[in-house]
């Protein structure tokens, strides 16, 4: 599977794989806690596993404020874009 997280569908696919649910049941506005059953530590763990799956370095500080699927996708995409840019600049 292509792991590049520049596409929202791929991020959601990884999320669904980790949560063991159908990707089609995940929607942007869903709250990680109330709708997907994760508490704040659970969502950090999720982001951590996603960062491993997607080969990304993520910081803990900003990850703490994430409460919805949309926010998680934006967070991962932003980091991906930054790291991708840095990698191309370095190459």
């Amino acid at each position, binding site marked *: 599977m292509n792991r590049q997280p520049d596409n929202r569908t791929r991020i959601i696919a990884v999320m669904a794989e980790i949560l063991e649910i159908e990707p089609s049941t995940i929607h942007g506005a869903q709250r990680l806690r109330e709708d997907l059953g994760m508490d704040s530590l659970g969502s950090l763990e999720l982001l951590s596993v996603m960062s491993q799956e997607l080969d990304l370095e993520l*910081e803990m500080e900003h990850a703490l404020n994430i409460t919805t699927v949309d926010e998680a996708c934006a967070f991962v995409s932003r980091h991906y874009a930054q790291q991708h840019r840095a990698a191309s600049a370095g190459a």
Partner: protein
Amino acid sequence: MLALEREPEGGGWTPLSLGPRLARVTENDAERQLLPLLLGSVDKLRVQLDSASIDRAGKIPADVLDTARRMGLFALTIGEEHGGLGLPLKAATAVIDQVARSDRSVAVMLGLHAGLGTRGLVQYGSSAQQSRWLPRLASGELVAAFAATEAGAGSDLMAVQTCGRGVAGGLRISGQKCYVTNGGFAGLYTLLVRTPGLGGERAQSLVCIERGAAGLHVGREEDKLGIRGSSTVTLELDEVFVPSEDVLGAGGSGSAQCAHVLAWGRTLMSAGCLGIANAAFQATLSHVATRRQFGRTLARMPVVQLDCADMAARLYAMESLVRWAADAEAEPVRLEALSTLAKVLCSESAFAICDRAIQLHGALGFLEPTGLPRLLRDCRITRIFEGANDVLLVRIGAAALASPRSELTGLRCADLRGTLADVARVCAALVTEREATLSLVRQRDGLSVMRKQALLWTLGQAEVKVHAAIACLARATAESSRSSLQVAEHAIVSLAADASAQLQVARDARGAAALARAQAICDDLIADTPAFRSSAGSGAHTQDSST
């Protein structure tokens, strides 16, 4: 006098507020008038309790239940407007501690009723739900039970499968719950169920179901190692109809509600650990004071003295942390964190104390009539239920890393003299070491630390001990007797040494080689087990990358 100070948000230093919080809670009128009476009643109940026969029969006798009802022991934390005693959590911990000194099964029954069993209803119930059930729960006509665990969802409650399907007017619930304490005779069950219709795919809700609901089947009693008098059963739910008005609070908020309910449960359970540990300790003191070997009493032997001092120090730390947690009653997030720390400390320490008590009794300690084997058996479960300790330690470690501020942020040593000045300095150095370690690990490992289970567990161990040391210090500052201060000092010094060693391990990331070796050993051992070979095809054992 307060031992530590806290830096407020705006800068400058103010006294650490463990003390004032204590004062605020104890000002509750209900507690002031009722607690001494209740504790007196519990003493009378103790006379009626024959723990050995409860243990043998695997059942709490009906007359004990009746006495407990008459004494108001089912009414502890239920509001006065519903016929309860309206006691604060701290007072309830004193009662459960007292009951557990004589019988842990009875303490578990009452503690579960006041904690997991009724807390959801008290905190999240509508006024209609509360008026319907709380008066009968307060009188003990109904005993409460709480059912979250399932065969496939123990530590991982997100995996709950019991599901409420939306139908006209409510939910139809099917599934199975296991290990339901009080379940055999409970009148009201609070269940954690999946409710995809009330939120997203994995949304969960708490629902109340009365005994006798059509489709609810109560299984037979489990045969257990300890707390044998406590009822533990399986529940089968076959299309049980639950009207919408029996869902607690906002549908879909079950997992957050569960966290709050568990915080109460863990505080009360920690109090039960205190009771049992105290019983083992008192029995040990009496024994070592009189048993003679080599021409002197055991109590005159330095190794025995070290053991006794260690038991006293453990008890002091347990009590201090339970009080700190219970005093956080009005602040749910703090209560959640502190109750988890207290639960781990108290359950591990109670077991260690009971084990040591048996050791110091020699062969006698191994014999059932001394009651010590029962204490050891009864307290074993507390390291498993309401969150297995290893799982909680990993979460505690993760929470310490994830929270930018905590109970301990900005604490520093105040101006103290004598013994307390020394131990306050030890605590202050420990708090500084903790903060430095957390910040180093955050920077070094980033978010990947959330996958490093062993490191989180080590930090969790340190967290429990650091908080226990601070709780001891805060309490010691209000203590005047010399012997209490000595015990506090002993507790703080040993907790700090342990915590510091754990923090060092986390900083050095030592043990990476041992972890890799452990994983390799475990993989080889598992690959050789017949159970693995027969399940390999079904994919029951899957490798994961956490270390």
